[in-house]
């Protein structure tokens, strides 16, 4: 379902890690593209390479072979600093384990990407976002003082703070109960629509995957659209 305005384009992506005795191939010859404004779920069994793919797509790591273009920029060829700068401007993250800084308050956690982007009204923007996710009364609480659902809402506020073009979510409801998970995914979807963000999400949650416009299945390092492995070299 690639369109002319692809925000993400992956060509011949292979990723291996060195082990003591040899190399382990985690992803094999992946080709895909994602259009702007799409919501895509990456599903698959544990250890199938979902999170690795997500990390590579987001430019958190570089692939062994292949090419990744994010918003027209070849991130697989960029230096770490160049990728960081691109992330700061275009990319947001939501993690399974929230990844909030324990020493900082909810407000300070949300302010972080805004400050990195050099915005001077970081505090006002962050306060507004936390209100939007229903935590207006918990600005000064540290992560340890918040429930899992609340922590993930802070993380979502942080992810949308810098108005990213594309948001990567790694099992965003994986650590939450059904009801809370539902509420968090509602929030994620709503913000995604409001801001017109592209959403790429790794999830086990079938309901959540079903709410996405597209599902990519990954198995043994190979990616298929709706469970069909495409012929090599053909974009799915």
């Amino acid at each position, binding site marked *: 379902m690639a369109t002319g305005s692809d925000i993400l384009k992956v060509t011949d992506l292979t990723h291996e890690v060195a082990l003591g005795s040899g190399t382990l191939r985690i992803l094999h010859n992946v080709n895909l593209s994602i259009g702007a404004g799409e919501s895509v779920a990456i599903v698959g069994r544990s250890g199938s390479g979902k999170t690795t793919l997500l990390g590579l797509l987001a430019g958190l790591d*570089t692939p062994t072979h292949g090419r990744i273009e994010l918003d027209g920029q070849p991130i697989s060829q960029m230096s770490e600093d160049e990728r*960081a700068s*691109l992330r700061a401007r275009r990319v947001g993250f939501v993690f399974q384990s929230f990844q909030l*800084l324990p020493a900082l308050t909810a407000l300070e956690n949300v*302010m972080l990407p805004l400050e*990195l982007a050099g915005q*001077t009204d970081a505090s006002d923007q962050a306060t507004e976002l936390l209100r939007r996710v229903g935590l207006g009364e918990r600005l000064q609480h540290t992560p340890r003082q918040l429930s899992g659902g609340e922590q993930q809402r802070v993380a979502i506020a942080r992810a949308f703070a810098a108005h990213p073009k594309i948001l990567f979510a790694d099992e965003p409801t994986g650590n939450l109960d059904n009801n809370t998970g539902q509420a968090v995914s509602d929030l994620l979807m709503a913000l995604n629509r409001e801001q017109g963000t592209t959403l790429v999400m790794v999830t086990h949650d079938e309901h959540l995957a079903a709410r996405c416009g597209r599902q990519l299945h990954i198995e043994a390092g190979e990616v298929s659209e709706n469970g069909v492995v495409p012929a090599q070299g053909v974009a799915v």
Partner: protein
Amino acid sequence: MAATQLARSNRDWRQRDVRVLVAALIVAVATVATIALYASHLERTLVTSASAFLAGDRQLERENGQPVPQAWRDEAERQGLATARMVEFSTMVFGGGNFQLVSVKAVSDSYPLRGQVEFQADTDAPRQMLSHGPGPGDVWLNPRLLRLLGLEIGGTVEVGNRDLKVTGLLIREPDAGFSMSALAPRIMMHADDVPATGVIQPGSRVEYVNLFAGADDALERFHAWLEPKLGPSDEWKSIQDGQALSDSLTKARRFLLLGGSLAVLLASVAVAVASRQYAMGQRDTVALLKTLGVPGRRISRLYRVRLLVWGMTGTLLGILLALPVFWGLASLTAGMLDRKMDYSVDVLSLWPALVTALVALFAFAYPPIQRLRRVPAMRVLRSQPGEAGRGVWMDVVIAVIAVFGLLWLYAGELWMVLALLGGLAALLGILALAGWLLVLGLRRVVGSGNAWRLALVGLYRHRRASLSQIAVFAMTLMLAATLILVRSSLLDDWQAQLPADAPNHFLINIGPEAVDEVRDFLGKHDLSTDELYPMVRGRLTEINGKPVREAVSKDREVRALNRELNLTWMQDLPSDNQIVKGNWFQPGQTEGLSIESELAQRLGVTLGDRLTFTIGSQTITEPVTSIRTVQWDSMKPNFYMVFPPGGALDGLPATWITSFYLGSSRKGILNDFTRRFPTISVLEIDHIIDRIREIVQQVTQAIEAILAMILAAAIVVMAAVVSATLQDRQREGALLRTLGGRQRLLVNSTMLEFALLGLFAGILGVLAGEVAVWALQYRMFEGAFHWHWRVVLLLPLVSAAVLAVFGRWQLNPVLRVSPMLLLRRLE
């Protein structure tokens, strides 16, 4: 059951905080043990080496003309002490057809008990170091005396009724000292020959001296036995009583104590930081145990047992580590002292290390761990606000009481403890104020992609951690600064006390008619001389008209009363004397006298009191018009009593005295001098000065070594503190990178944040250090206090640089690995 499983130490060992805690304890015990061992070793070495100045560990001097009773020597030998006898007197001797007044030293077989006699078999024979004096029937002469008498080696000298054979030259005796009575050239003979000379008659001026050497406790026991038997003319002397050297030794010992105390403090800080960190990390485990149904009491016991296991491990390893370090240091000093290396370890001197370990464990490590039992089980689900800070103040109070108790016990110097306490109190005061200002000032700073702003925001956001880190760093730096500052002023002091051209020769017995000629002679040979001082010998007999024996209470032992004092007059106050009360003589003033402050104190004399002296057949009485301090260790002529020119001493028979510096290459001048002024005595003390200098140098090196150790310990403490927040910092770094922070920004802001921490801690530490040094200087080292601008400016910069490097080092893993890997690793 889970609890017992948990107590298994091998599982503990995998935890970073436990390793840090045990490492802190090892460093604590090792530092304290090394310093204690080394201090005791150094003291033994120095005292032995300094004992050579007495030719024994202790001297008993008798000035009443009566020999020391045999029973006393027997008792000493029963206590396991070695003894030797000496008799000193002046007499005329005849040899080579000439008469000469000599100062005789007659010694028994065992002389000297410490040190060696420098001897020459003939004028051109090599010099030898001997551990004995001349045998019966032999005599050794001072080389100048040999020339004065016109004798050869093998010749005969008549001492009273006894003929003695000259078998060698006495170059130097270990206990030459420098007493003013040793005016005439020296001969040394055997003590057993003295009765046969018939020189000593009832009423002769003779001094019987007994030497003792042995273990400290035996000496103490013997002294305790002897003390009640001593009369007013008996004097028990130890090396500590010798002025110039003892001052240096006392200061050195205090420095070692100070170093040891600082080690105790640093160690305590390290253990406290590590155990607090450990306790914080254990809260989840405790909450879990409670959820599993383990009662609080059992949890407490569990942690006590573990603490004990780590305590014993740390102590044992610490001592094992201390031994090789101690031997290393000791071999360093052995090299300097030209002595055989002494590997023996004074086990008793290990107690401070053991007590430190115990106190560190139970006063610093235990309180936060003990509080773990109060962690609510609810924490498993959610932590409660305010949980983290509870009970910290109580910990601080316990810690402060414990550490100062420990210091007092260890150093036994209340002033030292109070000075350090004062410095710390000042530090905490400034810190509280500074922390408040920090929070106030930084609250408004907004981060905006700029390293400076991010660094300041970081300081504010981590304000709790920042403040406690600043507190620990500042304390560590304060201790280091104190030691650095005390060290430099101590060394400066010694340097000033013994400059390269310190006077090393005295001229005594200069008659009034020779004063100008001597001055000319010295001037012609370019010998920089101090003033020539007149000297009149007189005895203090009355204070305010009352006989001095009645005026001064019996329990005060005032040696100056037992002998004649050297009285002098002068117009100008010597540059190293200081008036503490009253006024120095005005020009033209002829009334009054100036007394040395310590003697005044011992006599209970103050301004306006009238002192009466008997000089020959005359008496003079003058009021005290000033009290002054004297630098006894200056190696210049010093006087208890000074009169104004034209005052009470005017017209009384006087001789003059002076001192000057003469390099060893120009010793030949002395021969010219003695030929020209045969009646003037030359006292050579250059070898004493060399010895003192040598000892000061050894002590200096020891001090440097201990300073280096303390600084190393300080760096370990700082590293422990920094690494306590390692994981948080790395997580933050990883997240910042994920969120798009560039490496350079991350590196710059982190280094800046740490540099600011270091700068701030450095300024606080050095200021608090100055406070402590001021107090120490004032009471213990008796030097004048002055600001140490170089250290004050340098230390904060150095600490900023060191911490910036620490910060950069922490960031390393964050920069090397992809953010994805790092986040996974830290999850």
